[in-house]
Structure formats: C-alpha cells, structure tokens
C-alpha cells in the first residue's frame, strides 16, 4: 500500500471536519444552558431535552414517524421479497418493465412524488390518516429493500433449496426454512435502511401530511421556519442519536459500507 502524503492527509482532515462540523455543533449546542443558540462554555444542561418532552406536538410527531417508518419498512420488506423472488427466479414478459416500475421512485424526485400523491389523495378524499402517508412512504422505501433482497437472492447457493425439494419439502416450507434464513441479512438490512429513510423523509411528506399526521422531520421543518431556539438542537441531537443507533445496528448486521456503497 502506498501512503498518503501530508497534503493528502491535510485535505482529508478538512473534508472530515467539513462533513462532521454541523452534526458536532448540533450535539454541543443541545446541551447549552442558555436561551440562545450558543455553545455551552461553563456548564452543560439538559433543559432543552426536557423542553422537547413538554411539547406534546413534538412527542406526537415522534410517534407518528416511528409508526409510519416501522409499518412502511415492514410492508416494504414483504412486497420486496415477493417481487424480488419474481424478478430473480423467473424470466417472463414484462420483467424489465416491472423492474423499472419498482425502482422508479429512485429516479423521481421526492418533490414530484409529493405533489403527485397530494393530487391523488385530494381527489379521493384520502387525507388525515396515517395509512395514506404510510402508503406513500412504502413506495419511497421499497426500492432500497428490493435492491438488497435482489443482491441477497442472486448470491444465494440454490443447492440447499434443491436438496429440500428432493427430500419432499413443499414450496412454502422451502421458502420459510431455507430461502428466508439464507437471505435474512438482506431482509434485516433492507428493513433498517427502509426504516431510516422513512423516518428521515421530509420533501414528499411535507405535501401529504395533515395536522394530525405530521411526522418529526416535517414538524422540525415547520418549527425551524418560525423560531430558532436550542430546543431545535436538542430534537436534532435526538434524531442523530436514533440514526446513529440504527446505523450501528446496520453495520453489525450487514456492513454499512456494503449497503451504502451498493446503494450508489
């Protein structure tokens, strides 16, 4: 291996500093005892974290986000595994079109999906319920799961499945006892990636949430456009903590570099 020179390392330090700066600042400001956005100098305080829990709308939005993300990720996994099996195992007319349809949300800006769903929901009167918001999120996160499931399926050694069939196992038993355990890293990795993407989604959600279904990123956006106080930093720090926890879990299960690099 060739070593990086001092200029390269300096460049690297600056880039890492640039990437981490806003996140670090948020996490520090969240602990400020002051009323304004300042770095804590003399002592730290948890008052702004306590303030978050005094805002029922933030707490409600957090649970909205949690529910939407968990439900959307779960349904996306079911859809993606079924679709993944069809796309990986069979050659049929319309296969390429189906593949393109399932991956299309990656190519359509969330802004456009948001206004399109707003129009549909307005026409059929589908507003004010988390169900419709979740349906929108399923569409956005399914492609991520599908990619991981397809990658897992294509790397699968099928001799175990064939052995089970030879031994008289039915199709369902083979799927449940052989196929699912073998692609489990892809499924759990896909679920977590879908969860994170749904939990963080803003641009589409901002068009299709109603006052009762506001998710946390939308609530934060609305709050940030009106007032800026250290509570915003506390909420952001909590978001970073949730994301970091999910990220570590992802890293353990699948290898984060594999998931994210595969995603590009």
């Amino acid at each position, binding site marked *: 291996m060739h070593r990086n020179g001092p200029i390269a390392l300096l460049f690297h330090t600056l880039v890492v500093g640039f990437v981490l700066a806003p996140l670090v600042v948020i996490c520090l400001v969240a602990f400020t005892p002051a009323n304004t956005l300042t770095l804590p100098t003399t002592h730290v305080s948890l008052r702004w974290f306590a303030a978050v829990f005094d805002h029922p709308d933030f707490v409600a939005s957090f649970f909205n986000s949690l529910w939407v993300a968990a439900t959307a990720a779960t349904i996306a996994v079911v859809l993606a595994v079924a679709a993944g099996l069809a796309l990986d195992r069979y050659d*049929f007319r319309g296969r390429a079109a189906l593949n393109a349809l399932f991956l299309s949300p990656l190519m359509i800006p969330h802004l456009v*999906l948001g206004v399109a769903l707003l129009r549909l929901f307005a026409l059929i009167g589908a507003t004010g319920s988390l169900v419709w918001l979740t349906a929108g999120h399923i569409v956005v996160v399914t492609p991520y799961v599908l990619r991981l499931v397809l990658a897992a399926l294509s790397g699968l050694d099928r001799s175990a499945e064939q052995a089970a069939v030879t031994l008289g196992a039915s199709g369902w038993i083979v799927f449940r006892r052989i196929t699912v355990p073998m692609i489990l890293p892809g499924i759990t990795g896909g679920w977590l990636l879908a969860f994170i993407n749904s939990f963080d989604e803003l641009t589409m959600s901002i068009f299709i949430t109603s006052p009762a279904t506001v998710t946390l990123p939308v609530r934060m956006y609305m709050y940030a456009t009106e007032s800026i106080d250290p509570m915003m930093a506390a909420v952001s720090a909590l978001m970073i903590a949730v994301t970091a926890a999910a990220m570590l879990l992802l890293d353990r299960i699948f290898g984060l570099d594999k998931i994210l690099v595969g995603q590009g």
Partner: protein
Amino acid sequence: MNSARASTTPWLLAAPGALLFTALVLVPLGLTLILSFHVYDAASGVKDETTLAHYIATLSDGYFLNIFWRTLRLAALTTLICALIGAPEAYILSRMREPWRSIFLLAIIGPLLVSVVVRAFGWSMLLGPTGLVNEAFRAFGPGTVKILYTETAIVIALVHVMLPFMVIPVWTSLQKLDPMVEAAAWTLGASRFTALRRVVLPQVTMGILSGSLVVFGLSASAFAIPALLGGRRLKMAATLVYDEYMHELNWPLGAAIAILVLIINLVIMLAYQRVVEARARRTLG
C-alpha cells in the same frame, strides 16, 4: 432463473407491489400531468378547461426563469465542488490502512442517513450572524459576513448533503482498480502526477460522471436546503413548487413546474444510461 415454470407465479408474486406502485406512482403522475394543463382562476380554483398557459408562463416569465436559472446554476456549482472534493477524498480513502479506511468511510457517508432537516439546521447555526464561522471571521479578519440566506449558504449545505453521492461511486470504481497498476506506472518511470492522470483518472471517470449526474439531479430538486438556508427570497425550483401549492394555492402552475423538474431529471438519467452503454460498447469492442 427458470423459465419453465408456470408463467403466472411471478405475476402473482409481484402483483401486490405492482398494483401499489401503479396506484401510487403512475396514476398520481398521470393526474398531475393532466392537472398541469388545467385553467386556474384565483377566485374559483381549478377549472375544467385546458390550457398551455402554465408551461408558457413558466418558460417565458422572467420571475420563473430567474428561479430556474438559479436552480441550474447552483446545482451545477454543487456538482463541480462535489467532484473536486469527493473524487480526491475517495482516492485518499482508498489508500488508507484498515481500520482507518472503514472508520473514515463511515464518517464520510454515514451522515447520508441523518435527516436533511437536521443537517440544514446545523449549517444555519454555523453560518448565521452569531455562528462559529462568523465568530472566526470576526476574530481573524473580515468581520461579520452575511452568509446565511445567500446562495453561498445553499451551495455549502448542498455540497455537504451531496458529497456522499460523489464519494460512493468513485470509491466503487477505485475498488476495481488494482493498486499494482499504479505502482507499475511508477516503476516504468512515470511521475506520480502522470500515473494519477493516465492510470487512475481514466478508471474513475465513470464514477465521477455517475456521481455528478446523481448529485446534479438531487441538487436541482432539493427542497429543505434552499427552504431553510435560502430564506424566503432565494427560491429554487422545489421551494417554488411548494409555494405555488401551499401558499398561492395555484396547483396547476405548481404541477407544471413539478413536471418540468421531473422531465429534467429523467433526461439526465437517460443521458447517463446512454453514456454508460456507449462506454461499455467501446470497452468491449
């Protein structure tokens, strides 16, 4: 792949997803396209008559053209800066030893998973009049500089959000490059710069190109960054669509702009696929 089995099975497996995607992607897009041709009247709302007025207005009115121009300009600038930072950074990362390589790769691409609202908020704290950047400016030089609510703030935050999308494809293409090839170039008398330019760069061109298209597409349709760091006056395409829908309530006009954003994105994606295919043919042939 076995094509021998009954051809209904794959359709049954894919049907739930296909129906959902048809209902929630294709149908809404069709409805939006139709909506963009409808007449809008401030007093009575959307009318049943059709018109091209919204497209003509968006493509001829100076106010809209100005916003489109800003969107394309800032997206292009973001793409350029991401390429200038992201490609060398990916190269430096690829030359690191474990465990530093994995740690820093995670540090660079991990923020991808943090909500864009959070990152935008972080930058608004850093760049604001009392933020750290201005503290530094006051201490070491030019005094307070207005950065927040300028195009500079938008570009800085966009680069921050988009950088992983550049690092990832360049990193991927570097993984395919055998480091011994570069070493061979040195042994044969090439300078470090020549080896970089003639051996490494051609290998990562596709990575840079692919990253650039993703970064450009995402920047041109970015919403949270221009909304939170550009303020009310510095609009980009996405914030314009949001205003037309939520404040002006002129949905047909908003729909027309959204359709234009979609078309620009699809053209970029198709152009990208053409380039990839053409290149693949050249390498094979």
